[in-house]
């Protein structure tokens, strides 16, 4: 028995040093089905040091996806208090509520189609690892269309939003619709490892949820393939322009549908500019 164990130890040792493993190929870029769009909800904040780099990685993912990925940045509670150098305060109650729902210890982090990670969390904490869940979501089938249209009244600063949803495949259970307003190209301070960047370009800053953060129910018993919901209409009045923020041409409307049967996972998303 003693010799047997010594042989086992030697064999294990030899196997450790003698293995020559063949490299695993880098998986090819995922080609999403035509029309498939997913959403990244980025948990960020002006006090969050690594968030400047995370924003660059997010932008790269969006560019690489060629329209299949849309996003907004959630400046909620954690590390979101304005810096002394900030002109703007990006925090708002909806962002705080959303951050509370998606909560994760630490920023940056991102919810990707609100799908659950292997640890049961809604968010992925490492920006360097966001591409993998993005790929996973992009590779899922395109089962519905979300179509946004808007009409902006320059005099009243009111935008009327219409959202249509039609199913390509059967969808079971309650379907909720989330509509959000965001704003890009806001030049303001952002902390970073090299200190505060005074003129950081903040993109897709979540301004307000037009619906609740979990969405308004639009189909209580699912949809059959080819079936559509009645057009959903919302309106939103953009606050007066102030010191370079609330600029309609920089603002976006995001809409997506979620499935309650899948713990709120996003099925399909869309994003347009208020003024195209």
């Amino acid at each position, binding site marked *: 028995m003693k010799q047997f164990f010594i042989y086992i130890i030697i064999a294990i040792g030899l196997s450790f040093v003698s293995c020559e493993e063949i490299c695993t190929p880098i998986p090819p870029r995922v080609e999403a089905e035509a029309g498939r769009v997913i959403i990244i909800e980025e948990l960020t904040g002006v006090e969050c040091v690594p968030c400047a780099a995370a924003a660059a*990685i997010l932008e790269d993912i969006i560019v690489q996806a060629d329209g299949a990925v849309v996003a907004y940045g959630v400046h909620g509670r954690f590390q979101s208090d304005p810096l002394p150098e900030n002109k703007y305060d990006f925090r708002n109650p909806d962002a705080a509520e959303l951050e509370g729902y998606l909560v994760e210890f630490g920023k940056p982090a991102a919810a990707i189609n609100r799908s659950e990670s292997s640890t049961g969390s809604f968010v992925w904490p490492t920006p360097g690892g966001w591409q993998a869940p993005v790929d996973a979501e992009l590779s899922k089938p395109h089962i519905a269309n979300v179509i946004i249209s808007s009409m902006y009244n320059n005099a009243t600063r009111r935008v009327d939003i219409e959202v249509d949803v039609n199913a390509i495949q059967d969808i079971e259970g309650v379907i909720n619709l989330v509509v959000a307003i965001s704003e890009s190209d806001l030049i303001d301070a952002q902390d970073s490892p090299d200190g505060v960047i005074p003129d950081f370009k903040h993109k897709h800053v979540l301004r307000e949820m037009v619906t609740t953060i979990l969405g308004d129910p639009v189909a209580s018993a699912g949809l059959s393939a080819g079936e559509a919901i009645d057009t959903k209409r919302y309106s939103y009045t953009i606050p007066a322009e102030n010191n370079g923020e609330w600029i309609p041409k920089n603002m976006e409307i995001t809409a997506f549908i979620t499935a309650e049967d899948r713990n709120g996972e996003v099925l399909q998303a869309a994003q347009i500019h208020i003024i195209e």
Partner: protein
Amino acid sequence: MTPSYSQSQGSFTGGFQTSANVFIRDSLIGAANIPQYDTGLFGVQSWLDLGYNQNGFDISVRFDMFNNSNLLNPNDSYTDEGIGRWHIEKRLDKLAIKVGHIYDQIGSGIIYRAYEERPLLIDNALYGGRLTYKLSDDWETRVFAGRQRFLFGEYEPTVKGAVIEGYVDLGDPEKGRLFTLAPGAGMLNRTLNQEAVNDIGSSIRNYVDSQRFGLKRNTFAYSLYNTLTYGPVSWYAEAAYKSAESFFNQFKQLQLPNGSLVDGRWVRESGTVYYTSLSYAGNGLGVTVEGKRTENFEFRADPQLTLLRGLITYIPAMNRNNTYRLTARYSPATQLLSEQAFQADVKYRWNKKLTTLINISDIHTLDGIKLYRELFTEVAYKYKRKWQLKGGIQFIEYNQELYEIKPGVPLLEGTTPYVDFLYKINRKKSFRVESQLMFVGDDEKAGFKQDYGDWIFLLLEFNIAPHWSFVASDMYNSSAGKNTPTDENGEKVLLHYPRFDVYYTHKTNRFSLSYIKQVEGIVCSGGVCRLEPAFSGFNFTLNSSF
């Protein structure tokens, strides 16, 4: 020692631990805006251990319960319950077979440590099997395989290891000469699941060619270690090597396709740790000198895991384990990617009454960036069995920018004198008073003192043996710092953080009830740390063994 009650040839042992919190919102200190304060209001976590031993069988099971608990994530609520751990072990002469959840470590834990640390919710037991064989009275070997536990499941990657450890006595009992060796060698293999490799592959797919690398599923780690004891001198040395593996290095820059650079990217590199500890004890003198060099030893069940999750490696901390509230306020977390550290601890007992201690530690990155430096002194005077007085001073430099990811803040400088007086009124009653003052440096850029500024801490403790203990303490922010809370007018508010505890011990049961108002801070155990947000509320604990 857990008592046991024999039942024929077998014995049952057990233990129960619970901690319950009532959260009372206090937005001024930052105890707000998380689910516990907003909606949950109450949280509890409990563990019940049961063990049975008979005829070489050792069976153990643990029930875990988390109900609206903030232990997993201080900013969130976690609720789940179930069997957190179990094992069955059978000893057959020289062979021991164990299956289930297994705690083990190789050497000092650098290439592998599976252990439990409840305050940090670390329980990374191996879920699998282990064979232990005694080759002789002095030599033992172990082989094990399994997956690392996480909460009520396991991570997908597999872990396999082998260890051989021995004891060699070269001394001469007749001459009273002690000379022993305790050598050991260990190997570990971690095989990633294909999904994890693909996920990393997805992340590096968009990298520029010069930053891309080949993906492999296997990582190997080796460790050689030995403890040499010669008379009053003991010397431990360990060298560990980890083969190249993929991990995220936040200090390396990623070049995006548009040419811009951002911090942090995946790399594939090998790692090493060298650790040694030399100690002497004799003639009232105790000296320990330690040194460590760490390079690229981020080693987890899955490289995509972060914070305290999935750690396979445990690298010894290189600073004193301080226990007073203010001397422990700034503790350095062990750095896994780049660290060079040194520590010396000298204790001398002048006579039965007087003892002195001095401890110094110095931690840098391999690039020479100062991380932590501490000088700690203590003088203890004991007068018969009537009273004891301890006092000393601590000087620290703490790289808050790196440890707490607070960019631009200067190296925190702290000076903390302290005193601790224990007076025994009679055989049953005793009284203790403890006080510390912490003075920190200036943050010239912010125009305030560093971090939260200066502190005063006072603690009064009254004990009635063997049952009762009453403790009242207050930590007062005596001088405003950059992070001192502000009121609605933007003025800094100097706050008290009081705490009241009552402890009751009955046989093997210990109860405590506390009212706590606590500033945010770092909680560490052996160099493994996490940031704890501010807390406001009540805490009840029960520790029981049977």
